[in-house]
């Protein structure tokens, strides 16, 4: 819109204080896409090149839905800002390997239509769009989405339980080392903690995401995980297992740090991260589901306006 205007002479119309980011919205979106590259590579290494079709379907249907809704609402079609691509990639990476492509497409449509555009598009969504899509798929196709495959580089791989499901239903504790590298069954991009950490640290160091949410989530997980581990190390898993299991690492660096659906204030981010970890531990250890990162983040997304309200800094000189 204002590409034609010389930026040096642009008039700031918002009220002070003004804060400037190193990156524009478009640049940071594409940087997140870049940071997802290690996870995509790990998905290809551990689950085969065929898995790219899931990511491709997801991204294409996210873009198509976004374009269709923008067209129907007679708004400017802004596909190149990369936000729909992020949603598509994130959704694809949290789906199980060899997931039905039709269902992937449905999930992508729901993620963009119900997760983002219904609230008014980028910047207005309450919940993380990719997680909305995943939650819908979890409710719509409960069998398909919990069919996990062992990573053995082949197309028709053997189905096996994820470390968390094995812990919950068979009381078997998986070794931590393969969970760090990613050689376990699980969602496409979630298994390799290493790839996720590379991408996440990249985002933190170039200043695209704030360090407070990931750090408070990891510290929170270590604290709450340790409490139960100290109470009874036989029944409850070690905090490091909890840290590396399931989608916790992926959720920490890519889902909870979503700028739109996480708190604005520094204190709020810390509270947000701690509470997500607390809910994750509660769901994993006492809930009916083996994994709860998705629901924990969605639940805390709903609390973000409240957190913002109670942690907003006092205006200097204002009457209490």
């Amino acid at each position, binding site marked *: 819109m204002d590409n034609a205007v010389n930026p040096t002479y642009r008039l700031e119309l918002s009220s002070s204080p003004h804060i400037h980011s190193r990156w524009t919205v478009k640049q940071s979106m594409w940087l997140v896409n870049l940071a997802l590259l290690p996870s995509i590579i790990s998905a290809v290494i551990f689950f085969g090149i065929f898995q790219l079709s899931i990511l491709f379907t997801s991204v294409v249907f996210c873009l198509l839905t976004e374009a269709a809704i923008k067209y129907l609402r007679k708004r400017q079609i802004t596909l190149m800002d990369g936000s729909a691509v992020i949603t598509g990639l994130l959704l694809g990476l949290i789906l199980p390997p060899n997931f039905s492509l039709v269902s992937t497409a449905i999930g992508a449509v729901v993620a963009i239509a119900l997760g983002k555009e*219904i609230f008014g598009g980028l910047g207005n969504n309450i919940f993380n769009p990719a997680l909305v899509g995943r939650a819908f798929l979890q409710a*719509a196709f409960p069998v398909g989405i919990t069919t996990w495959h062992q990573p053995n580089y082949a197309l028709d791989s053997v189905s096996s339980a994820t470390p968390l499901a094995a812990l919950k239903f068979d009381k078997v504790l998986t070794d931590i080392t393969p969970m760090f590298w990613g050689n376990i069954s699980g969602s496409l991009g979630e298994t390799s903690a290493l790839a996720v950490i590379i991408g996440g640290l990249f985002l933190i160091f170039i200043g695209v995401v704030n360090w407070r949410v990931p750090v408070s989530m990891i510290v929170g997980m270590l604290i709450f995980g340790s409490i139960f581990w100290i109470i009874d190390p036989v029944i409850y898993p070690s905090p490091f297992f909890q840290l590396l299991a399931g989608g916790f690492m992926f959720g920490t660096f890519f889902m909870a740090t979503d700028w739109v659906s996480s708190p604005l204030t520094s204190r709020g981010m810390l509270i947000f991260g701690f509470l997500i970890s607390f809910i994750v531990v509660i769901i994993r250890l006492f809930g009916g589901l083996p994994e709860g990162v998705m629901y924990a983040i969605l639940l805390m997304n709903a609390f973000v306006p409240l957190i913002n309200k109670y942690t907003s800094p006092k205006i200097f000189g204002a009457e209490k």
Partner: protein
Amino acid sequence: MKKKVTLWYEFFKGVWDINPAFKQILGMCPTLAVTVSAINGIAMALATTFVLVFSSLIISLVRKLIPSQVRIAAYIVIIASFVTIVDMVMKAQFQELSKALGPFIPLIVVNCIILGRAEAFASKNTPFRAILDALGNGAGFLLALFVIGGIREILGSRTLLGFQVLPNSYDPMIVMILPAGAFLTFGLLMGFANAYALRKNRKVAETNIFKYKLEREKLKATEV
């Protein structure tokens, strides 16, 4: 003022303009709970319509006899008698439907649509108009429940009114026959209905602004 409302509009307003489900947002409990399939929705809406029509008629007939302090109690007695009739008839004749709808048939007694129409319309209007209003609201409720039930049945179990409409290759979305599907379907439909109404109103407003501008330009022209 009241005389000016045509008999047709008395009926039709309930179907669209003040649709009980989408516009008045009344009777949410059966709207969300029983619309697992289209046939359940139809049965629920017909039962409600029956109670609505007869209670509106009776309440309209005795509207001048009931002291206003005890009117709600009197309405409930009238409504409850018809609900009892519906419940007993359904148990005797349509056992399957009665089982599927469960407690929601007796719960018509406290359905907001019926009490709402009794309080807002039947207690202030003549019996004939009260019946037309009740029929219109019943038709509107039937439309809403059929649409919601139909969408949920097609997507959730591949069928419509018991006939298979989607091929077996389609993976039914289990979420649609769960409560979450009801909220999702209802919310989206209400959103579309509101967006449509908004667009219609905006068009009216735009033509008014256009007329005003035209008028102003004419005035300016005459002034010059």
